């Protein structure tokens, strides 16, 4: 955010939400845009570069706002950008079909004195509603250029750009317009303005009258700033403002804001009177959008259709991404296999195959999933349906301190078993208020994602094989219940505070533009690839090292070596050759000669394989992860987990899929591929240490405990702080310990599971 004028002229895009601002931005900049965040906050900052007649221009898409008074983060960001960066031109997008309200923002922009160019967008929609606007006359009255456009089709874009360049060339100084606010406000406003101007109070940032007005409107940010600069004058201004407020309260039972708003709307209706706006009274007032709404937000049909549509989104995301995800996984597996054969066995091979390719591959395999999810959400968002979902579900979610829009994040995270918390956490971007958004981000990982489901399936197959379907349904209910209840808990403790009043504009239904959808989807996906990719590489290497090092002392590996030699020594010489060439490490070697080799060779191979598995178990137990697992027994004994489970759960923090394979290694089962978890399942079922209660306790724990680190990284990115990432790890694990402990001990008390 540098303010160097350089050669690029800075142009800002300002407008109400849903006025077609982003569509226009995309139409102008195309793919040449850059998405980032404003420093320290989650409001997206979009920038694009383009040129007109050789002139380089930088276009910044400000967040959608209804006013320039600091009532929300978006408004604050937009205002600060305008006054600090001083754009050469502010393109103020105005929805022609909702002119009065949109001009409310325009008026404030003009009061600020910014060089405004009014973009009369969606003139086609307005005409469809029988509204015709005389742009030239409006331009004459507000003393600023007015260009009619249809951003969707790009109509009027060229004229707009030429007008913008012309305005930038004028190098106009910021000249605020003066609006009269009536006999109650004007005298004090003039008095304050004079005081501010003579003291040069904040005049380097705001026009004097604007500062005075903000004091009357009780704008906290401006008042705060004023106190820092000149506390004496500031308190005088505040006293004046207080006096007016009290007077208005006493005589008219109203606030200055109401009077100010009233005069602004009065000014607007005067602007539009006699000739600017023509309304065709015959035009059908019941627009298509309203007719669609009659069905889609119908009291009875609405919720049913909503569930059907959300289910379709879910199906679309996971079904269509399944194949590409598998291709990527296979591709990375093949790459891993290739590196395994190309590199000599040893630490380097292990690092590259397991740490780098395994870790990064695991993350990049998610990309198709993320892509389809964002495409589906972009579609729902751009059509305007997502706003209706929020509207319909708000009552239910509000009870738990959440917002109607939270449902999307929950469902994508695995509200219907099999989702993924990574896109789920990212789906909270549609939520505007930060408390509800954070609570949603923190609880979405409680849902049963696609990586937890195989673990549950394995445990259910081992211990609850008769109640399979029932158990999965129960687990889905449990995860919803815990997510909602923990959300309630979070919202009534650390994120306490009133729910933001539900105020949402339902934009008219529109068919999204293909270009808009693609840009929307791609920019979000690319952010995932770039940012998550780098951090995840580092963490997966750390996890690899934790599970591979330190190696057990020489004596242990020598002991395994001796046992191997003993097995080989028992064999006759010629057969020993066959066993050794098969694979000394004992990996299954399906040689074509298998049937011809005597049973004694098969037996020896089995023995070697068993030794290798035991060695892997010993290595794992000796590694940092194994030791940590053993140390954790002190706590986890309380919920009945031994070191094997602990190591598996620790690995599950890297990726929940790893729980099964690590458990396999820890039980000396060898690496258990996900599809062949039957053997592990049988092994656990026959283990005297395991029973139904322990299995159920583990299921509850896995459902709730720390999200995988990919999710944690996303939480950090979305919440803007590492603190919340750490919190999610600790809080969720604490919740998991508490609840699974309760299950375990109540179970023991009731003598269940025996």
């Amino acid at each position, binding site marked *: 955010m540098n303010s160097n004028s350089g050669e690029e002229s800075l142009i800002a895009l300002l407008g109400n939400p849903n006025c077609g601002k982003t569509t226009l931005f995309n139409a102008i900049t195309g793919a040449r845009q850059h998405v980032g965040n404003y420093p320290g906050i989650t409001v997206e900052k979009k920038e694009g570069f383009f040129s007109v007649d050789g002139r380089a221009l930088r276009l910044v898409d400000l967040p959608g706002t209804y006013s320039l008074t600091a009532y929300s983060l978006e408004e604050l960001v937009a205002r600060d950008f305008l006054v600090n960066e001083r754009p050469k031109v502010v393109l103020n997008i105005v929805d022609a079909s909702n002119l009065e309200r949109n001009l*409310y923002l325009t008026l404030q922009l003009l009061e600020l004195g910014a060089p405004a160019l009014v973009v009369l967008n969606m003139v086609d929609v307005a005409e469809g509603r029988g509204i015709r606007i005389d742009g030239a006359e409006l331009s004459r009255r507000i003393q600023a250029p007015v260009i009619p456009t249809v951003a969707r089709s790009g109509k009027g874009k060229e004229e707009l750009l030429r007008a913008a360049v012309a305005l930038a060339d004028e190098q106009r100084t910021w000249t605020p317009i003066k609006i009269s606010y009536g006999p109650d406000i004007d005298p004090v406003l003039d008095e304050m303005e004079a005081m501010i101007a003579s003291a040069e109070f904040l005049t380097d940032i705001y026009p004097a009258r604007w500062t005075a007005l903000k004091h009357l409107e009780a704008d906290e940010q401006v008042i705060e700033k004023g106190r820092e600069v000149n506390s004496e004058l500031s308190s005088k201004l505040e006293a004046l403002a207080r006096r007016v407020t009290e007077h208005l309260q006493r005589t008219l039972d109203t606030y200055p804001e109401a009077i100010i708003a009233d005069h602004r709307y009065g000014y607007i209706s005067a602007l539009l009177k006699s000739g600017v706006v023509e309304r065709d009274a015959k035009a059908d007032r019941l627009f298509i959008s309203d007719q669609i709404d009659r069905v889609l937000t119908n009291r009875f049909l609405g919720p049913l259709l909503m569930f059907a549509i959300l289910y379709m989104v879910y199906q679309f995301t996971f079904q269509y991404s399944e194949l590409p995800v598998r291709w990527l996984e296979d591709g990375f597996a093949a790459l891993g296999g290739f590196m395994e054969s190309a590199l000599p066995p040893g630490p380097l091979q292990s690092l590259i195959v397991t740490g780098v390719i395994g870790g990064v591959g695991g993350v990049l395999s998610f990309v198709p999933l993320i892509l389809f999810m964002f495409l589906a959400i972009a579609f729902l968002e751009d059509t305007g349906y997502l706003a209706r979902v929020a509207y319909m579900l708000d009552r239910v979610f509000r009870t738990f301190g959440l917002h109607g829009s939270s449902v999307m994040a929950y469902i994508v995270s695995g509200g219907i078993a099999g989702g993924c918390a990574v896109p789920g956490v990212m789906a909270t971007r549609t939520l505007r208020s930060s408390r509800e958004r954070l609570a949603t981000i923190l609880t979405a990982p409680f849902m049963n994602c696609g990586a937890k489901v195989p673990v549950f399936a394995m445990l259910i197959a081992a211990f609850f094989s008769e109640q399979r379907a029932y158990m999965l349904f129960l687990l889905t209910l449990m995860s919803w219940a815990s997510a909602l209840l923990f959300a309630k808990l979070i919202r009534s403790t650390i994120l306490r505070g009133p729910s933001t009043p*539900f105020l949402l504009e339902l934009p008219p239904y529109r068919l999204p533009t293909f270009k808009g959808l693609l840009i929307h989807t791609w920019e979000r996906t690319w952010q995932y690839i770039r940012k998550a990719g780098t951090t995840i590489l580092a963490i997966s290497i750390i996890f690899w090292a934790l599970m591979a090092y330190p190696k057990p002392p020489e004596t242990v590996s020598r002991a395994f070596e001796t046992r191997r030699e003993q097995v080989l020594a028992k064999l006759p010489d010629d057969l020993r050759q066959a066993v050794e060439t098969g694979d000394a490490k004992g990996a299954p070697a399906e040689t074509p000669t298998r049937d011809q080799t005597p049973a004694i060779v098969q037996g020896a191979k089995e023995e070697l394989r068993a030794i290798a598995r035991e060695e892997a178990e010993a290595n794992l137990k000796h590694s940092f992860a194994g030791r940590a697992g053993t140390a954790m027994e002190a706590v986890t004994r309380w919920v009945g987990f031994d070191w094997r489970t602990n190591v598996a759960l620790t690995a599950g923090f890297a990726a929940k899929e790893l729980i099964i394979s690590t458990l396999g290694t820890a039980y000396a089962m060898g690496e258990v591929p996900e599809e062949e978890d039957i053997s592990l399942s049988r092994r656990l079922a026959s283990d005297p240490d395991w029973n139904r209660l322990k299995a159920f306790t583990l299921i509850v724990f896995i459902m709730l405990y720390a999200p995988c680190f990919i999710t944690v990284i996303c939480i950090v990115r979305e919440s803007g702080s590492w603190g919340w990432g750490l919190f999610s790890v600790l809080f969720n694990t604490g919740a998991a310990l508490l609840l699974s402990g309760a299950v375990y001990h109540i179970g023991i008390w009731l003598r269940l599971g025996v």
Partner: protein
Amino acid sequence: MLMGWLRKGQKCKNCCMKHVDEAGLPLTDARPGERLQVKSIAGGRRLCARMAALGIYPGAELELLCSACGAPCLVRVHGGTLSLGCGVSDKILVTPGGEVI
């Protein structure tokens, strides 16, 4: 299950403002499909200003599209449709009437 949730408590908890007088009727108690005029906003100054920015201010005309849908109110103001939570629509006092735009 959700249907039950939605149908239950179609009125807001705070809707017990039975005294309909000169001050007007809370938006939550108005009949859907009616054209209404905003009389006043019975909330703090912040709410007043926010509502004004959204086009709801004393004197503004609006049409209540749907009130007891078990969800927030749906209002049409100028050309746009707004959905307002109960906490908000409760504080918007209206009188019937107003010209059809």
